C-alpha cells in the first residue's frame, strides 16, 4: 500500500500529539490494534525512524484511547480486525437496534431471506446497503441488486481489503467490488456514485454491535 509522503507523521510527533508512551504504542502493536503495514521504517544515519499514515493512525489512536478503559485490548483487537466477526443476531434483535433504516432492512430480508439469525456477513451487507441508500445516490431496486451481488460473491466476504463501488452512466448503474492493488479508469460520462470501504464498514459495524452489548450466537 502506498502512503503519500506528505501524509506521514513521525513516531515522535505522534507521541507528542496523542500523549501516549512508547510502551503503549508497542503494546498496541503487539495486540494488533495497529496494523503492521502502518509502520513505515526509514533508515537514517541517526538510526531508524518510523513514520505512520497520519490520518489513519491519529484516528485509530483516538478510538483506542476512547475505548481502552471499558474494553480489553483483545476485544479492541477484534473490533479493528479486518476479519468479519463471529457474531449472529436475530432479525428482530437487529431491527430493534436501529442500526439500519427500515427500508434497507426490508429490502435485505426480501433478497437474503435469512433463515433464523443474521450472520455478521449478512449484517455487513445490509449495513453497506443502508449507507448506499442513505447517500441518496441509488434507488431501492439498485440496492437489491447490490445485496444480490454481495451475497453471491465469495470474494466480498473474504476479509481482503476491498471497496464496493457503484458506477453510473446515463442512469444505468453497475456494482463493482474493487480489490487493491489495481486502478480502474471510467469512460467519459460515467461517474462513481457510491464508494464504501469494506474494512471501514466492518469496523464501524463491529463498533455499533459491540458497543451496544451484543449477544453472541450460541
Amino acid at each position, binding site marked *: 500500500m502506498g502512503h503519500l509522503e506528505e501524509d506521514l507523521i513521525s513516531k515522535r510527533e505522534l507521541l507528542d500529539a496523542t500523549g501516549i508512551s512508547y510502551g503503549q504504542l508497542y503494546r498496541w502493536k503487539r495486540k494488533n490494534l495497529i496494523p503492521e503495514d502502518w509502520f513505515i521504517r526509514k533508515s537514517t544515519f541517526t538510526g*531508524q525512524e518510523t513514520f505512520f499514515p497520519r490520518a489513519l493512525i491519529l484516528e485509530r489512536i483516538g478510538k483506542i484511547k476512547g475505548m481502552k478503559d471499558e474494553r480489553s485490548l483483545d476485544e479492541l483487537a477484534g473490533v479493528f480486525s479486518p476479519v468479519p466477526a463471529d457474531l449472529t443476531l436475530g432479525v428482530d434483535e437487529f431491527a430493534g437496534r436501529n442500526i439500519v433504516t427500515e427500508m434497507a432492512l426490508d429490502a435485505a430480508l426480501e433478497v437474503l431471506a435469512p433463515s433464523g439469525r443474521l450472520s455478521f456477513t449478512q449484517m455487513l451487507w445490509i449495513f453497506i446497503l443502508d449507507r448506499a441508500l442513505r447517500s441518496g445516490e441509488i434507488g431501492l431496486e439498485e440496492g437489491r441488486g447490490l445485496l444480490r451481488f454481495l451475497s453471491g460473491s465469495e470474494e466480498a466476504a473474504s476479509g481482503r481489503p476491498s471497496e464496493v463501488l457503484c458506477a453510473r452512466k446515463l442512469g444505468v448503474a453497475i456494482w463493482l467490488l474493487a480489490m487493491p492493488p489495481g486502478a480502474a479508469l471510467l469512460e467519459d460520462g460515467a461517474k462513481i456514485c457510491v464508494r464504501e470501504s469494506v474494512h471501514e464498514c466492518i469496523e464501524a459495524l463491529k463498533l455499533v454491535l459491540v458497543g451496544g452489548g451484543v449477544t453472541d450466537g450460541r
Partner: protein
Amino acid sequence: MDGEARGDVLINGGGTAVGGVCRTVRINGAGRISGDVDCQDCTTNGSAVLQGDLRTENLRINGAGEVTGSAEVGRGHVRGNAKVGGDLKGKTWVVNGVADVGGSVGAERLEVYGGIEVGRDCEVEVLEVRGWLTVRGMLNADAIDVALFHRNSAVNAIGGADIRIHAGRRLLVPARLVADTIEGDDIELENTTAKAVRGARVVIGKGCDIGNVEYHLDLTVDPSAKVAQQKQI
C-alpha cells in the same frame, strides 16, 4: 480437539512415524515424524525431527528437537537444542540451551537461559534472557530483561515499556548487545552499542556506545559510557 478418538505415538530406540491428530507424542532415542502433528503433549528425549507443523498444549524437548514447519505451543520447555523452521507461537516458553527460530516468535512469556536466534520479529509480553539473543527483525516486548553473557547479542530494533540490558557474568571480554534503535519508557543499558536510544527515563550505563539519545524526563550517563549526542524532547 477431541482427545477420545486419538491414539498415541511412541518411538523408542529409533523409528519413524507419520503425523496426524493424536493425544501424546513421545520419542525416546532417535525419531522422525513426517507430516503435521496436532497433539496434547509432546515429549522428546534424544533426537527428534518433525517434518511439518506442530500444534500442542505441552512441548518438552530434552536433547535435540526440530520442527521444520511452524509450531503453536501452549507451554514449551527446551533442555538442549531446539529448532523451528517457521514461526513459533506460544504462551510460555522456557529455553535452557539454545533455540533457533527461522520465522517470528509470538508469546506471552519467553525465558532463555542460554541463547535464542530469531529470523524475523519477536513479540512477547515478558522477555527474560540470561545469555544471548539474536533477533533479525524487531524485538517488541512489554518488559525486557537481558543479562548479557557468553556471546554477543544483536537485535535490529527494540521497542517496549521497560527495557533493561545489563552485563551478566564477567568474562575476559564482556559480551555486548548491538542494536540499531532502542525505544521505551524506562530504559537501562550496559555494554550496549546503538545508533539511537529514545525513551522517557534513560540510564546509559558502563560500556555503552550510543549515537543519539533522546529522552523526555530523565537521563543519566555513566562517565565511562560514550554518547555522541543527547537531547531532551
